[in-house]
């Protein structure tokens, strides 16, 4: 078991942790609509603001005449990129080149550019935008990255953008391979690729297209902000902003404010799915409110909220392997959408060296990526839903199995290395266990492609994939717990993103203090530091580790206080009216003689001697802990260790007459290390499988090549699965306790995200490849029937 460094990491009996069906602390607010998200806030005397958004994929505002717009009744103010206050916004105090917060360059259709209007209401804003006299310089665009990478393609990015130092998630410039035209390069070489291919008995070459898909945050982002006189802190007005959840301090700092002068009460962030980037509508309202002297609201429309969660990538692979299926060399060349300026490269260039390959015993790997600047759109900050090109490895295993006439599961077993190193021949224990359960659940009987017809005439296909549990649970957390008036409080900033992180932490506190989940009072307060969010279940399990440590510090302090009061009882209160005080059953004992169980402080040697926690001490006690779980594999480096694994399976039926694909079921057998909160774990698995279904069968960005305009940025044309579309997801969880977080737990959901498991099952059914989304027309075309 992991979690060796923490208190009670090896706990054997659980009363609270892992329990299902405990309602979320915020669930009643959410279910009844009381919960307010950024877009929901409407405040008295509020103005509305709208950005000018580019109707062109690549363009520059040469000039803008605002005269007609300003003359419209109800227009309060118009900001242009040339105004001094907005020029200063967001500038680094350390200097250096950075893109202005608002400039006159639009590098994708819908980009905020040049102008912001402020008016009495949304309709007047829209009219004012229509009345702007904008002179546009329309520039050549790239929305097809295969065209954009060609030497004769127009160079779309202004030269000054190339001088901006890369951000944390931007592609790193490769000094040995300078940028050419629209193309930057990222190249990683391990081992000797030529030698690897020389060792191979056979070679396969294949290509796959990873689809772009939308982050599709359910609540369109936005904010409302105002300034107020604040008697608590001097130095001018303080800022109140709603909608910039969890980024209160960073938004405040844009306006030169210390943290204490920025207020944000709301904590509902909505679904993030790792799209953590802030939109301009969430940052600009303080500036506009300052100019207008009134509260200002600015929100994105749904159409303006179709940013990427994953960007498009074309992959071309050459894989050498021995006749037993052992891979000896991987040559991976890919062409990746770089998106517009400032797009994150998470999931693409930033992930080179990660991914499936480091689970392989093969050490000869070359990854070459071309990152093509485009005008397709933007991916904010994260975008790692289907991370690390895992599906390229999944396809390699499938294709080798096809070529050798073997079961892909057996090919995976040959290639996986053991827990200690790439030379470790022992299987990863939980991989073997997951496979055993998965095969049982699936009634797994492998068949070659295009060979199994179902009784109803449709073709049957199945697929399998594995992935390690991700270990980015390396973030540190600052936790505070309080015993206040006999009740235990867990103060937290939140936020609520839907991962039930606070609840899992409350369960850990209850477990460690011998209390029930309902006994833990969670105090949401924007001023608190503890934010148990850092990437879905990974953040939850890591923050729960820090919470466990804090709970044990609190417990120790409580027991010390109980003994101190038992041995030196406080004087009777004036309201005891001379009644004799009951002597404490703990008199003469030491803290180590006591424990906490069933809501009481008890004597270890005689648990019948106990006092309810509320009566055990009159003291208010505070405990803090600041730290992170130890030994996270992701902070130790890649390719050297494996511990817990997950497996997923898919079964489809394909109608070769209509091209319709039905996913008969998903099966997931996963090892989360330790189940913390069963109900939300199950739900996370469902989510990730439905995301995978959507991107492989339905979701698609369609561009007009001539204008570069995105045609599907609405919920009618960009299809998401509905309740009638989703198949059953059968799940089974193993608990090896091998993770690095609380009680050996680890993160789970990213690991099961995929772009090709359904696609491979379709190939297994019909014997031909179809790029995602595998819509019926594409299936029929692939079958030569359309």
């Amino acid at each position, binding site marked *: 078991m992991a979690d060796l460094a923490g208190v009670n990491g090896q706990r054997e009996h659980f009363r609270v942790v892992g329990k299902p*069906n405990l*309602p*979320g602390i*915020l*669930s*009643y*607010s*959410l*279910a*009844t*609509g*009381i*919960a*307010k*998200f950024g*877009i*929901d806030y*409407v405040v008295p005397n509020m103005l509305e603001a709208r950005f000018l958004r580019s109707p062109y994929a690549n363009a520059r505002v040469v000039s803008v005449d605002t005269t007609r717009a300003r003359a419209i*009744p*109800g227009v309060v103010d118009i900001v242009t990129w040339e105004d001094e206050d907005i020029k200063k916004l967001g500038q680094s105090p350390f200097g250096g080149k950075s893109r202005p917060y608002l400039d006159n360059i639009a590098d994708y259709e819908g980009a905020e550019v040049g102008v912001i209007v402020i008016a*009495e209401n949304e*309709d007047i804003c829209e009219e004012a935008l229509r009345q702007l006299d904008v002179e546009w310089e329309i520039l050549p665009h790239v929305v097809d990255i295969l065209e954009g990478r060609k030497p004769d393609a127009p160079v779309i990015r202004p030269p000054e953008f190339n001088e901006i130092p890369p951000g944390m998630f931007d592609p790193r410039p490769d000094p040995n391979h300078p940028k050419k035209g629209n193309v930057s390069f990222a190249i990683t070489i391990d081992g000797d690729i030529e030698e690897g291919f020389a060792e191979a008995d056979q070679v396969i070459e294949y290509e796959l297209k990873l689809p772009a898909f939308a982050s599709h945050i*359910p*609540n*369109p982002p936005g904010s409302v902000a105002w300034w107020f006189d*604040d008697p608590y802190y001097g130095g001018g007005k303080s800022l*109140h902003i709603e909608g910039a959840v969890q980024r209160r301090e960073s938004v405040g700092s844009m306006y030169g404010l210390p943290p204490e002068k920025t*207020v944000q*009460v709301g904590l*509902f962030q*909505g*679904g*993030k*799915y790792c799209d953590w980037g802030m939109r301009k509508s969430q940052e600009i309202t303080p500036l506009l409110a300052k100019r207008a002297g009134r509260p200002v609201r600015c929100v994105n429309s*749904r159409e303006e909220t179709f940013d990427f969660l994953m960007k498009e990538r074309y992959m071309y692979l050459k894989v050498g392997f021995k006749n037993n299926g052992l891979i000896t060399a991987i040559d991976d060349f890919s062409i990746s959408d770089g998106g517009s300026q400032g797009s994150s490269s998470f999931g693409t260039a930033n992930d080179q060296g990660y991914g499936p390959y480091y689970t392989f015993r093969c050490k000869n790997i070359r990854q070459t990526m071309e990152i093509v600047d485009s005008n397709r759109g933007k991916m904010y900050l994260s975008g790692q839903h289907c991370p690390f090109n895992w599906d390229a490895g999944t396809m390699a295993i499938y294709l080798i199995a096809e070529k050798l006439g073997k079961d892909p599961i057996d090919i995976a077993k040959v290639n996986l290395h053991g827990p200690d190193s790439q030379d470790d021949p022992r299987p990863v224990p939980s991989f073997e266990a997951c496979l055993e359960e998965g095969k049982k659940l699936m009634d797994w009987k492998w068949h070659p492609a295009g060979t199994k017809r179902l009784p109803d005439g449709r073709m049957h296909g199945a697929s399998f994939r594995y992935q390690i549990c991700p270990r980015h649970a390396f973030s540190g957390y600052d936790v505070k717990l309080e015993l206040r008036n006999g009740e235990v409080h867990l103060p937290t900033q*939140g936020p*609520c*993103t*839907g991962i039930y992180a606070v609840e899992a932490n409350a369960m850990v506190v209850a477990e460690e203090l011998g209390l029930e989940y309902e006994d833990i009072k*969670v105090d*949401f307060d924007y001023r608190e530091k503890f934010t148990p969010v850092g990437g879905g279940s990974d953040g939850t399990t890591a923050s729960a580790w820090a919470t466990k440590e804090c709970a044990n510090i609190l417990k120790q302090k409580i027991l010390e206080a109980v003994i101190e009061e038992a041995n030196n009882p406080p004087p009777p209160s004036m309201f005891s009216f001379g009644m004799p005080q009951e002597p404490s059953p703990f008199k003469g004992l030491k803290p180590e003689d006591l424990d906490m169980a069933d809501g009481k402080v008890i004597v270890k040697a005689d648990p019948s001697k106990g006092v309810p926690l509320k009566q055990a001490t009159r003291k208010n006690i505070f405990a803090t802990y600041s730290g992170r779980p130890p030994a996270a594999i992701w902070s130790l480096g890649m390719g050297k260790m494996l511990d817990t694994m997950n497996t997923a399976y898919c079964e489809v039926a394909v109608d070769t007459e209509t091209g319709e694909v039905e996913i008969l079921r998903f099966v997931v057998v996963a090892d989360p290390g330790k189940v913390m909160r069963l*109900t*939300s774990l199950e*739900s*996370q698995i*469902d*989510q990730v499988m*439905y*995301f995978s279904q959507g991107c492989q069968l339905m979701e698609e960005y369609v561009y007009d090549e001539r204008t570069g305009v995105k045609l599907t940025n*609405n*919920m*009618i044309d960009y299809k*998401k*699965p*509905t*309740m*009638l579309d*989703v198949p*059953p*997801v059968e799940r089974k969880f193993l608990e090896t306790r091998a993770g690095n977080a609380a009680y050996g737990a680890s993160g789970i959901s990213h690991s099961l995200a995929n772009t090709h498991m359904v696609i491979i099952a379709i190939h297994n059914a019909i014997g031909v490849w179809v790029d995602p989304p595998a819509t019926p027309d594409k299936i029929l075309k692939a079958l030569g029937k359309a």
Partner: protein
Amino acid sequence: MANEERSRTDVALSHEAAQVKSAEAIRAIPSVLTEFRCPTCGKVFGSYANLQYHYADEHPEFVVPETIVLHINGKDCEVLVEPHWTLQRTLQFRLDLTGAKHMCGKGACGSCTVIIDGRAVLSCITLAVECVGKSITTIEGIAANPKWKPLVDAYCKWDAMQCGYCTPGFLVTAKALLDKNPDPSEDEIREALSGNICICGTYPRHTTAILEAAPQIAAGG
């Protein structure tokens, strides 16, 4: 004001507290308007007639907003709206009812669902002026009614929400279904809720919750 600005967030609610808050939200809606704010310039008037005069004088090129009476959650409420305003916008901007959520704006996702005269209706594509004389039930009305406690409880017990943005729309649709069919099958639930999109993918949780709650509601809670 400063104390209000720096108040703690009060959203960790029990069902009973949520019920009380929902009832308060309905009670807080004024039955009769006492001030009439010009949507075009923000000036406030004490009567609708004065607002009309103001429009004639100051904004003759604009359409004058209307006062209408909407029957919402059992209560008549006078509202000042512009003719093109949707019911969703009216609920959010005029009545401070935030349960009907704006997600798609095109009638494609169900997050803004309300019940009008017994039918689940998408308030983002329904004009407010069309709703005069009709009975409108929002999530606040359902949450305030103890009859529906088993449904809300089951939603919370089964995590039939992750981020929770679309959840009120699902609950309203579920209530509309149970009004007509107190004992629905799993397939009937899936069919009824197929117009509600949950990006977080909580779909199987809704059927579980509704199947659990339905007999309790039928038995009177």
